[in-house]
């Protein structure tokens, strides 16, 4: 038994080495910009680059818009399917899994054919149209994760009783959805939202092919032209992903504590 525990430790240590060494190397590399000393110069250069600020701000806004679109699309649909259309569940679930089957590169190829500047809905013809198309494209990328999170959240509460109680008090459908159902699944919605943010913020393929002024294409451009800044950017991106996943755990734990306290 002692032997197998040693083996387990060895496995974990080797695994940890594979995952930690690239992070350590990236941090070390990002500090080397000034010759002969470690400095935060690369971070200073990146963070004060106006293009960094512009593209990061743009991608943050698109990510927030994606989250709003995703919530408005997924919460009512998942609620309605559970309450009234259980027979449609397989169809809706199948659709939410499609983004895993259709790679983003294929999706955006289709966008460019359907919504190019000479089509019936010329979304790529204008900057605003591109923003809309990018947001909706990202909403599809996030769909599998958002839907699963919300669907699981809805299963954990008794939506039938909540709906009937709200109805008997004379609540309208918007009231039921946004003041009864949504607050009850806020942990699930927040989890989906943070995951969406993590997926979308540095996305490259769709943004690049739509020529959007987004963070992902900026990362690629810096990577092709600079030496130390890419490492600083990689560390920043890793911290954002880490923060999103950490926040998911924090809101989840907060909910459990709340439930336990009741």
């Amino acid at each position, binding site marked *: 038994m002692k032997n197998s525990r040693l083996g387990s430790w060895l496995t974990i240590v080797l695994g940890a080495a594979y995952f930690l060494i690239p992070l350590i190397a990236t941090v070390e590399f990002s500090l080397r910009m000034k010759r002969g000393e470690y400095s935060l110069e690369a971070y200073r250069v990146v963070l004060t680059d106006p293009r960094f600020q512009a593209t990061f701000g743009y991608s943050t806004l698109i990510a927030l818009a994606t989250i709003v679109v995703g919530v408005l699309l997924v919460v009512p649909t998942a609620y309605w399917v559970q309450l009234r259309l259980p027979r449609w569940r397989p169809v809706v679930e199948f*659709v939410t899994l499609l983004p895993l089957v259709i790679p983003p590169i294929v999706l955006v190829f289709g966008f460019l054919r359907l919504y190019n500047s000479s089509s019936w809905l010329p979304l790529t013809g204008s900057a605003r149209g591109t923003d809309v198309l990018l947001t909706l494209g990202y909403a599809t990328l996030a769909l599998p994760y958002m839907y699963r999170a919300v669907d699981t959240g809805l299963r954990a509460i008794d939506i039938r009783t909540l709906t009937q109680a709200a109805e008997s008090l004379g609540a309208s459908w918007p009231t039921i959805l946004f003041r009864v159902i949504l607050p009850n699944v806020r942990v699930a919605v927040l989890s989906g939202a943070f995951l969406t943010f993590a997926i979308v913020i540095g996305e490259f393929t769709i943004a690049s092919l739509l020529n959007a002024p987004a963070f992902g294409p900026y990362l690629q451009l810096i990577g092709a032209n600079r030496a130390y800044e890419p490492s600083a950017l990689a560390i920043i991106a890793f911290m954002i992903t880490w923060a999103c996943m950490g926040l998911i755990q924090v809101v989840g734990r907060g909910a459990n504590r709340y439930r336990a306290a009741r």
Partner: protein
Amino acid sequence: MTQQAQTSTFPAGQVPRLPGMSFAWLGIVPFMIFAVMFLIAPAAILVVGAFQDQTGAFTLENIVNLFQPSIMSAYWISIQVSTASALIGALIGFFLAYAAVSGGLPQSVRATLMTFSGVASNFAGVPLAFAFLATLGRTGLVTTLLVKYAGFNIYSTGFNLLSFWGLVITYLYFQIPLMILIITPALDGIKKDWAEAASTLGASRLEYWRYVAFPILWPSLMGTMLLLFANAFGAIATAYALTGSSLNIAPILLYAQIRGDVLHNPHLGYALAFGMIVITGLSNGLYIWLRGRSERWLR
């Protein structure tokens, strides 16, 4: 937002009590419109285009033309990279998950592993390429440390980060964590009693794995491997940032085609996209089927 407009036209109390004929399906119309416009139609128009010639008439020529060496080699390298990273990722991920679940390690190891896997499985794309360039690139930390302290230059062995194995090693950074996240619940489903029951009946540890644990786990294992395969197959950002267009994999070829019609035939481009959908579709379809099988035991 149209959702409320449609559903609230019914008096609230009446809607749930209409038997048979009902308009409840109207509630998912906004979702379905979204799905058709931004998911199904974009894929469908490419599939249709793959079977059309320049004049719009039906043809199989584009599909036949996919079998020219330059396109076939792009698919083939993609399939090899995806298969290698899926197999190795699944193997390493399985051992890591197994060590954390049943290796007798403190609970905190498992919690840390799961949290980290959640982060790493989402740490993909361009920044991941940067991290590996800083590690195993020509001036990367590991490369230079090995030269300095071991007198060993990995680049003299023919290794290159901007190559097949470089890409596989990089992809493992999100493949292994994904495997851990998916296989851990399956490993939790393996009851301790089964191992005890098997050993009471005189089974050796090997026989237990051969006849009990593995047959229960294999649908999850196979299924997850297929998911990892599709995950790597559709990925482009990491490969593009790492190798530019020097490694000819299918998504990068498609990217170049969208950017500048490098195949000199738009419809061949649609066929290329169609081929990618077929491959990811097959592996995901098999995954869903296998997951259905594994859920029978692992409750």
